[in-house]
């Protein structure tokens, strides 16, 4: 007996602790019925699931990829990104930010259970460009943006930088309420112990990345999120990314390269910046590189004429696209912009003005054919909580949501049906370039 205890103390001191803890746990599978697979990315995969509690609520479960050594799943330490996402989500609570219901740590995997959102900005954009073939109407556009900014104000008031705002990360519930999602790259900027750039060399997906980041700024602030909001507004209005640059890849030493193409795309619309617009420009590490680029003229006003169709709308966009981060409009100021005071006014149900048949289809989910620790138990789609709207074509998995095809919460999903096919081809490169480089 003495030997046994000494042995346990020496070789597996946490044996009893683990046994006790494990026995107290209710496994994920006993809490949720997995309805299907939504998307996947570098972090892992997202599933649609129904709570087995009485409420039977639908959730999105983000399962972080377990670490593997060969084929054996093992513990290697929780990623910084998962720690952030857990830590931040546990503290926040806002109508326009996706709510975390719980985190389940089980069998070497982390499951984050979020409230489910039926749509996202990228899907709405696709729906309009591929199916409806007309622009998002102003009432919807304005409502989506108003709520997005409202969510950003909250995050910023909590001193959280999102650092990855883009259409695929901004969700919408079936009630037309915007929910900002994916805080995997977000972080607290209140009293940081280290400068922000020390942690993550590259932040924000390239098309939404602010000029100060592209210019190699060592310090940045909330203004980078505001730039991304501008990009999202422009994309909603035109149904395509406004600055669709090619990302220069990191070299073998993981140095961050000069993002020439992305800057050129920006300059083409906003003109080449000068010291007058942005006094800090000359101190930017990439200033010399930038000087060598071909010069362009400002044509945002022209760009907006056919797309935003409102002088006030143009003015808001122009203020979000100011080169100097210190002059750029803040989220708090943006929500007070006169554009939101002129007709049509934003609504809390962004789809309020949309005829039923024009509402974007429900999120497609696929059956998970890849081996997974969380194999779907119920593949019956028409049970309670069936994910499809009545009358919506229910196509089988067409492969566009195969693992690894996208990086974000929802960009792997798509609208169903044949209309999607051209987009799908598009989507391959699309997803590729959307991939954000993570260095840690």
């Amino acid at each position, binding site marked *: 007996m003495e030997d046994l205890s000494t042995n346990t103390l020496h070789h597996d001191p946490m044996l009893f602790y683990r046994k006790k803890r494990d026995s107290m746990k209710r496994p994920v599978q006993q809490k949720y019925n997995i309805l299907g697979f939504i998307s996947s990315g570098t972090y892992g995969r997202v599933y649609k699931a129904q709570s087995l509690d009485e409420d039977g609520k639908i959730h999105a479960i983000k399962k972080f990829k377990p670490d593997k050594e060969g084929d054996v799943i093992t*513990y290697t330490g929780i990623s910084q990104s998962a720690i952030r996402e857990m830590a931040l989500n546990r503290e926040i609570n806002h109508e326009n930010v996706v709510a975390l219901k719980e985190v389940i740590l089980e069998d070497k995997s982390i499951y984050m259970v979020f409230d489910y959102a039926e749509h996202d900005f990228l899907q709405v954009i696709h729906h309009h460009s591929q199916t409806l073939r007309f622009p998002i109407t102003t009432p919807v556009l304005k409502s989506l943006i108003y709520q997005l900014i409202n969510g950003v104000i909250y995050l910023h008031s909590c001193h959280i930088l999102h650092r990855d705002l883009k259409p695929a990360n901004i969700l919408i519930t079936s009630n037309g309420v915007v929910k900002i999602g994916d805080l995997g790259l977000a972080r607290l900027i209140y009293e940081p112990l280290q400068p922000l750039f020390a942690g993550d060399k590259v932040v924000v997906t390239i098309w939404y990345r602010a000029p100060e980041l592209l210019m190699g700024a060592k310090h940045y602030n909330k203004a980078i999120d505001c730039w991304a909001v501008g990009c999202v507004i422009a994309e909603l209005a035109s149904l395509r990314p406004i600055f669709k640059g090619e990302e220069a890849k990191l070299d073998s030493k993981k140095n961050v390269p000069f993002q020439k193409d992305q800057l050129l795309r920006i300059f083409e619309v906003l003109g080449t910046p000068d010291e007058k617009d942005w006094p800090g420009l000359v101190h930017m590490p990439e200033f010399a590189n930038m000087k060598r680029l071909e010069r362009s003229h400002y044509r945002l006003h022209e760009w907006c004429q056919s797309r935003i169709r409102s002088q006030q709308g143009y003015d808001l966009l122009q203020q979000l696209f100011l080169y100097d981060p210190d002059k750029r409009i803040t989220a708090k100021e943006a929500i007070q912009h006169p554009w939101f005071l002129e007709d049509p006014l934003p609504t809390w149900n962004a789809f309020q003005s949309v005829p039923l048949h024009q509402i974007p289809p429900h999120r497609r989910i696929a059956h998970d054919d890849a081996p997974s620790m969380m194999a779907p138990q119920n593949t019956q789609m028409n049970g309670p909580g069936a994910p499809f709207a009545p009358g919506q074509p229910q196509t089988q998995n067409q492969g566009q949501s195969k693992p690894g095809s996208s990086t974000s919460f929802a960009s792997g999903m798509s609208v169903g049906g044949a209309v999607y096919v051209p987009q799908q081809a598009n989507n391959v490169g699309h997803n590729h370039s959307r991939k954000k480089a993570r260095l840690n």
Partner: protein
Amino acid sequence: MATDFWASSHYKRWIVDRATLAQAREEDLTYAGSQEILDFLGIYFANIISKLGKKLNLRQRVIATATVFFRRFYLKNSYCETDPFLVIAACCYVAAKAEESPVHIKTVVQEARHVFGQDQYNVKNFPSDNTKLAEMEFYLVDDLECDLTVFHPYRTLLALCKKETLQFGVGGDLLDAGDLGVGMGPDDGPRYWGTGEGRLELSENALQMAWFIINDSYRSNLCLLYPPHLIAIAAIYLTLVLNPSAQATINHLLPSSSANNAAESSPHSTEEPGTVVASSSHFQSNAHANTTPRRSSRQSSQTQTPTQSSQAQDPTSSLEKQDPIEFLANLNVSLSLISTISQELISLYTLWDRYREEGVVTSTTGANNNASTSDGGSTLSGSSGSHGSRGGGGNRSPMDSLAGSGQGAGNEGSPGFPGVGGVVGLAGGGLEGKIVTPAFLSRVLLRMREARLLGGGNTGPAVNRMVENVKGI
């Protein structure tokens, strides 16, 4: 969230009452035999976290977060049923990530093996395999319920106080500036508190002392019992009565007679701070109760009169114009709570006085310290080891900061209060006011864990035998 404590997980889920604390330690208590041993273990573990944290180059705030994680974990678990060393390593590892200054898991394993392998801890079997630590992290985060954002008193301290003559800017620059980060940006909008208006001005070493008192507070369970801003205010209060230059700012406000009789009231003689009724006048007299013994002990063991020296050092008239007592009263917090917390801090120092790290017993200022060296344990000398080690490790204590103002370094021999150590020791039972070392506690801990594994609840005899042998250490 970062600014709103009242909406935080820290406030909503992790401030507990004493009954919860007692319940959490119930099993440990049966194996340890006395509450005092558990209190010493609280100091012991916090010191180890601090040591490992320093080896890992973690900032003070990260170490504080790791300590809070450790204490929260043991709200749900007992020392004897787990491996506290593995938990400590995991706490440091997670805290580093949660505070955005990550350390590689390999480094943590290496340094943990090094620190824990020291003779006084004698942990020779810390797993060299990363996966063991990673596994512990996993369970730890689960037990912490993923609440990884922790508030600390440092921020309140700097919101309420500033260094004298420093008109603008964050006071943190004179401390470890990086411990608080770079401060608020200009884009944070209007603020209604912490604007810098009306901050209490403290001399540099007084501010530093308050900072160190906050560091020290993590040796106790205060971080589980009270919101951080109250701990900060208690630290300011203690600084006002303990720090010579700060004393100067309140002395002229107090009737001089109170200083004489206050010594008898001996506020820290009770382990039940709740019994102290702190009306505002009591608060003031307490201030002197604490001051007097400190001052006298200082005067007896040191060569200078602190009040004089501080006045010489700090001729600032601005310090004299302010009224720190009114300042505290106007903070609109319960002064009786502040008093309770202050009592607990004093009790902690009293206990800590008897905690001695090996290898640092030799005084750096032996001449000043003749009264307190080489004793068997029941006098006040314990401070030499503990504070010396803190000074040496870079974790400076309030007493060290006093030392820095010309009072002798490292081994001032006066953080305790004459006559008190013995009282507490008797009350605690078993140890009878003896000096306790990490090596002793390491053995107690091992016994507790072995006994727990054997399933018997009765280790009283074993621990008692060890207690008998304390003198042999």
